[in-house]
C-alpha cells in the first residue's frame, strides 16, 4: 500500500473537464467580444519594451522588433494583453484564496531534485519559452489554444511542435520530474 495519493491529501482542484468546458466557453466569449483569443506572453513582451524604452529610448526605437510596439501616445504597457494578464494574477489569487492554496513562498519540485536546482531550471525554461514564443507568435494560450480554436494553421503548427517536442525530450529530463 504505497499509494498515498488518495482523495484526502489532494488539494481541491475542480474537475479538469469542468475547467476545460469553462475555459472553452471563456475563449468563445473572448472571441465573441473582442474578435481575438486569449494570450499571455504578450504582456511580458510589453514589459520588456517598456523597460527598454525607459532605459534606452533611442536604442529601442532603432531596434526593428521593439520599435513596432512603441507608440508616442501611450506607454507600451497600455495594451489589452497587459490588462488581461493583470486579471490572470488577480483571478489566480482569488482561486487560490477560495481553495486555500495561498501560502508562504514555496517551490514545487520532483522528488529527485533540490529546490535550488528546480529554480535554476525554471529560469532556463522560462527564458527558452520567452524566446520561442516570439518566434511562434504566441505561447500555449495565445497561439496553440486560441489559434487552434479559431482554426488558424499557425496555431495547429505551434501546438503540435510544443507538445511533440515535449514528448520527444521528456525522457531525457525525467530526473527533473519523477
Amino acid at each position, binding site marked *: 500500500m504505497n499509494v498515498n495519493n488518495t482523495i484526502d491529501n489532494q488539494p481541491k482542484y475542480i*474537475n479538469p473537464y*469542468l475547467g476545460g*468546458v*469553462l475555459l472553452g466557453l471563456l475563449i468563445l466569449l473572448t472571441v465573441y467580444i473582442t474578435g481575438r483569443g486569449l494570450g499571455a506572453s504578450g504582456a511580458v513582451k510589453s514589459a520588456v519594451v517598456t523597460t527598454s524604452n525607459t532605459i534606452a529610448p533611442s536604442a529601442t526605437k532603432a531596434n526593428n522588433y521593439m520599435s513596432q510596439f512603441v507608440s508616442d501616445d501611450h506607454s507600451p504597457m497600455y495594451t489589452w494583453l497587459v490588462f488581461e494578464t493583470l486579471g490572470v494574477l488577480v483571478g489566480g489569487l482569488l482561486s487560490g484564496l477560495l481553495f486555500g492554496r495561498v501560502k508562504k513562498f514555496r517551490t514545487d519540485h520532483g522528488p529527485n531534485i533540490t529546490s535550488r536546482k528546480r529554480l535554476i531550471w525554471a529560469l532556463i525554461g522560462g527564458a527558452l519559452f520567452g524566446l520561442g514564443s516570439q518566434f511562434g507568435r504566441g505561447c500555449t494560450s495565445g497561439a496553440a489554444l486560441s489559434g487552434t480554436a479559431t482554426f488558424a494553421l499557425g496555431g495547429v503548427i505551434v501546438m503540435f511542435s510544443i507538445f511533440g517536442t515535449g514528448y520527444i525530450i521528456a525522457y531525457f529530463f525525467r530526473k527533473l520530474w519523477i
Partner: protein
Amino acid sequence: MHIHELNPWRTLIALSAFVVLLVVGFLTMQKPLMAYQLTMDESIKELTESELYFYPWDLEAVIAKETDTIILFDIRDRFVFGQGHIPGAENLSANDLTKEENIARLEELKEKGFTVVLYGEDELQGNGPLMLFRQVGFSNVKLLLGGYNYYFQHKDDLYSTVDDDGYLKGFARFDYADMAAPKEGALNSGAEKKEVQVQRREKTNVAAGGC
C-alpha cells in the same frame, strides 16, 4: 481515486447550459427571407443566358390568354400601373418586393411551375429585381425586354417586333471612336452621311425609351 470515478455533475451542468444556449439560439433564429442560391461565378455566367428574358412578341400569346403558365408582374408603382398596363398584368410595385407575402407568392408560383415575367418602365428598371430573384433561386423569373415603353409603342403590332432590334440593349449603336474623333474639317461628305445614319438610329433609340 481516479478522476473518472467521481461524478462530473458540474461539468455536465456547464456543458448542458451551453447546449441550452445553442438551442435557444436556434429557436430564436429568424429564417432569412431569401438566401443566395447562386454563387458569384454562377450569377455572372447566368447573365449571358438568353432564357433570362422574355421577348415582346411573345406577349401576344399571354395577352390573348393562350397560355396559362405565364404571369406578368408590373413592378412600376400603383399610380403608373393605373394609367395603363399590359392586359392581364398584376401590379407588384418595386417598393413592395421585399414584403414577405410577395416572396411567398413567388415561392408558390415557382412550385406550381409558373413562369413569372417582370416588367418595368424599361428594361433597366426590371434588371435589378430580375438579377436578385435569379440569385436567390427563383429560376422561373424572366424579364420583359424593352419594358412597358416598348410594349406601348408596339402594342398594335407585336408580331412585327421580331424583326426590330429597338428593344435590344448591350451593343453599340454608334461607331464611338469615329464619332468622338477630333473633327478638323468642316462638313465633308463622310460626315454628312454619318449624320444621317445617326439621325435614323436616334429615332429607334427614342422608341426604345431613350436614355
